[in-house]
C-alpha cells in the first residue's frame, strides 16, 4: 500500500451517551472506502470527526501527511457531501459552485472562469442561474461535486447522500458517482447502511457496530468471509446455520447440520473448534433438477431438498428450501423457470466447500 492519504489512528471520543472506541482507518490514494453499519453505529460521527467537527479524546487523524487532529474543519481540505447534497437553497448553481472558491479564498466572483470550467466539466453550465429547488437529484449531485472540487479537497466524505432517494434514482446516481470517483481519483469515504453502495462504489469496506470497527478489508473479502455473525448478518449472508464439527482433515472440515453432512474449507479456523456457524451466500447455492446428472464437482456437497417457496425479486428470485435444515438459494428468474421449481417439488443442491465460510460458534 502506498503512503495513506488518510490515516485515522486509534481514535476514541465521547459524545454524551455515545462513544467511538479505538477507530482506525487507512486510505490509499484513489481508494474508496465504505463505512457500513446500522443506524447509531457511529459511522457519521466517525466521518464528522475526520471532517473536524468533533475533537478526539485520544488518537490522531492524518490527512495528506499532515496531522489535522486539532485543526478546525475549515483548515482541513475535505469535501463533505451530505444527504440531499446540502446545496445552499438561497444561491444559484453558479453561486453554489463559486462558494467553494470564495470560502477558501481562491476567488471572489461567481462568474469567474474557474467556476465556468467546473460547470462545463459536470455538464451543468446550462443550469448556472437555477436555484437548487429546481434541480433533479442528479443535477444536485453534480453541482455538489463541482462545489466540493472547487476547494481542491484531499479526500471526499460522503454521508449517506442517497438515503432520501428512490431505488431507481439511487442506482443511476451511484453509477454516476462511481464513474466520477474513478476518473477524479480522489480518495473517498462513503458512509452508508446500504450494502449495495459498498459493493458498487468501494474497494475497501469497514463494518461498524456500537462505536467500533468490527471488520475492515477489501470488499470481496469481507463479504465472502465475515469475521462474526454481526458482519455476516449485516453484509446480507442469506444462510447462517448452526453446525457441529464431525471431523477435520487439513483445511477440510466435515460439519453436521441435523442429520446431514456438509464439507467446508476453512484453513484458518482454530483446530479444537466444536460448534460452528456456516455462512453460505445465496448465490453460492447452485440448484439442479433431480434428474440431471451431477456436475463434475466431485468433492462437493450434493443434497436433495424440498422446495418450500419461490420469491420473485424482479430479475432475481429467492428459493426457500428445506432438507432437515432451511436453506436459501438466489438465482435468476430465468434459471428458476428453466428448473421448473414449484413449492412441494424437489431440487438438488450443490455447494462448493470453499463457498462455505465457518465461524466459531
Amino acid at each position, binding site marked *: 500500500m502506498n503512503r495513506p492519504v488518510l490515516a485515522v489512528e486509534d481514535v476514541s471520543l465521547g459524545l454524551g451517551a455515545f462513544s467511538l472506541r479505538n477507530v482506525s482507518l487507512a486510505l490509499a490514494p484513489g481508494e474508496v472506502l465504505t463505512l457500513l453499519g446500522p443506524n447509531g453505529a457511529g459511522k457519521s460521527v466517525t466521518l464528522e470527526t475526520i*471532517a473536524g467537527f468533533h475533537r478526539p479524546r485520544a488518537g490522531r487523524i492524518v490527512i495528506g501527511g499532515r496531522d489535522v487532529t486539532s485543526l478546525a474543519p475549515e483548515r482541513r481540505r475535505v469535501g*463533505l457531501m451530505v444527504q440531499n447534497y446540502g446545496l*445552499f437553497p438561497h444561491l444559484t448553481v453558479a453561486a453554489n459552485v463559486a462558494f467553494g472558491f470564495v470560502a477558501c479564498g481562491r476567488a471572489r466572483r461567481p462568474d469567474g472562469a474557474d467556476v465556468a470550467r467546473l460547470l462545463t466539466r459536470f455538464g451543468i453550465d446550462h443550469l448556472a442561474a437555477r436555484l437548487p429547488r429546481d434541480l433533479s437529484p442528479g443535477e444536485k449531485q453534480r453541482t455538489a461535486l463541482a462545489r466540493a472540487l472547487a476547494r481542491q479537497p484531499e479526500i471526499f466524505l460522503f454521508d449517506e447522500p442517497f438515503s432520501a432517494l428512490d431505488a431507481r434514482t439511487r442506482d443511476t446516481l451511484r453509477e454516476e458517482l462511481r464513474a466520477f470517483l474513478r476518473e477524479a481519483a480522489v480518495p473517498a469515504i462513503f458512509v452508508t447502511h446500504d450494502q449495495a453502495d459498498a459493493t458498487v462504489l468501494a474497494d475497501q469496506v469497514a463494518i461498524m457496530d456500537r462505536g467500533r470497527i468490527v471488520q475492515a478489508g477489501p470488499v470481496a473479502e469481507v463479504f465472502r468471509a465475515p469475521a462474526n455473525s454481526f458482519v455476516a448478518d449485516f453484509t446480507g449472508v442469506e444462510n447462517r446455520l448452526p453446525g457441529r464439527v464431525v471431523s477435520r482433515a487439513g483445511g477440510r472440515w466435515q460439519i453436521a447440520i441435523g442429520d446431514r453432512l456438509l464439507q467446508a474449507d476453512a484453513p484458518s479456523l482454530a483446530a479444537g473448534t466444536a460448534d460452528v456457524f456456516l455462512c453460505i451466500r445465496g448465490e453460492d447455492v447452485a440448484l439442479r433438477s433431480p434428474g440431471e446428472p451431477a456436475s463434475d464437482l466431485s468433492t462437493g456437497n450434493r443434497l436433495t431438498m424440498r422446495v418450500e417457496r419461490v420469491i420473485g425479486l424482479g430479475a432475481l428470485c429467492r428459493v426457500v428450501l428445506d432438507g432437515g435444515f432451511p436453506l436459501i438459494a438466489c438465482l435468476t428468474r430465468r434459471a428458476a423457470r428453466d428448473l421448473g421449481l414449484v413449492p412441494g417439488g424437489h431440487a438438488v443442491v450443490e455447494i462448493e466447500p470453499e463457498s462455505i465460510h465457518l465461524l466459531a460458534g
Partner: protein
Amino acid sequence: MRSADLLADASVASGPSRPRWPAAMARPSGVMLVSWFLGSVLLAFIVVPLLGLAISQSGASLVHVAALPEVRNAILLSFASALLATSVAALIGVPLAYALAHATFPGRGIVAAIVDIPLAVPHTVAGIALLFAFGRRGIFGAPAEAWLGLRFWGTVAGIVIAMLFVSVPYTVSAARIGFESVDPRLEKVARTLGMGAWRVLWHVTLPLAWRSIATGLILTCARAISEFGAVVILVYYPMTAPVKIYELFLRFGLNEAAAMATLLLALSLILLILFRWLAQGQGRASGYGR
C-alpha cells in the same frame, strides 16, 4: 402571530385573478365550510372596528389633526423610538435566539420561558417594574446616570426601554424559529468548504434565517409603536402617539382622539407593509455574489 401576513394576503385574495380560488371552492368539505364560517367571524372582528374608525373620519378632520405640531411630534417620536427599540432588539435579541436554537444545555426551556415573560405581564406592571430598575436609584438607572449621564424617567431612552421590554419576545421567538429551520448540515458543508464559523453565520445561517428574523423585527416594531401601558408609566412627557391619543380623549373627547387614531392607524399600516415588502425583497436578493 403573523398579523402582517393576513393584511398582506387579504388584499391579494380578493382579486379576481386567482385561478386556485374558485377551483378550491368548487366542492368545499364540511370541515372547510365550518372553518371558514368561524374564521370569518374573527376576520370581521378585526377588520370591522378598524374600518369603522377609518370611515368615521372626514378628510378635513384628518388634515386638521395632522397639522397640529404636537400630534406630528408624538407620531414621529413613536416611530423613532420604535425603530430604536427594534434596533436594540436586533442587537441583543437575535444573538439570544441563535444561542437558544443551537444550545442543548438543560436550562434551555427556562431561558426560553424567561424571554416570554413580558408577554404575560400586564404592561402597567411592566412599567412600574422598569421604573424601579431604571429610576434614579434603580439598579440600572443609578449607574447609567452616574457614568453615562443617561436618564430614563421622562426621556426618549425611557420610551425605548419600555417599548423594548414588551416587544422583544417577538424578535427572539421568530428568530429562534428561523435559526432552528436552518439545516445544520449546510453549516457543516460551508465549514468544510473553508469558511470559519463567523463567515458561515454571515453567508449561510443569517441569509437562510432572514425571513423569520425580519418577521420578528417587524412584529417587534409594530408592538413597540402600539405600546401604551408601560410607556405611560415611565414617560408621560414627551408624549408618544398612543399617549397623545389618550390625552386628546381625556381633554377633548372621542372625536379629536378618533381623528388622530385614524392617522396613526394609517401610518402604522403603511410602515409595516413597507417593511414587509423590503424584507421580502431582501430575502430574494440576499443571493451571494449577485
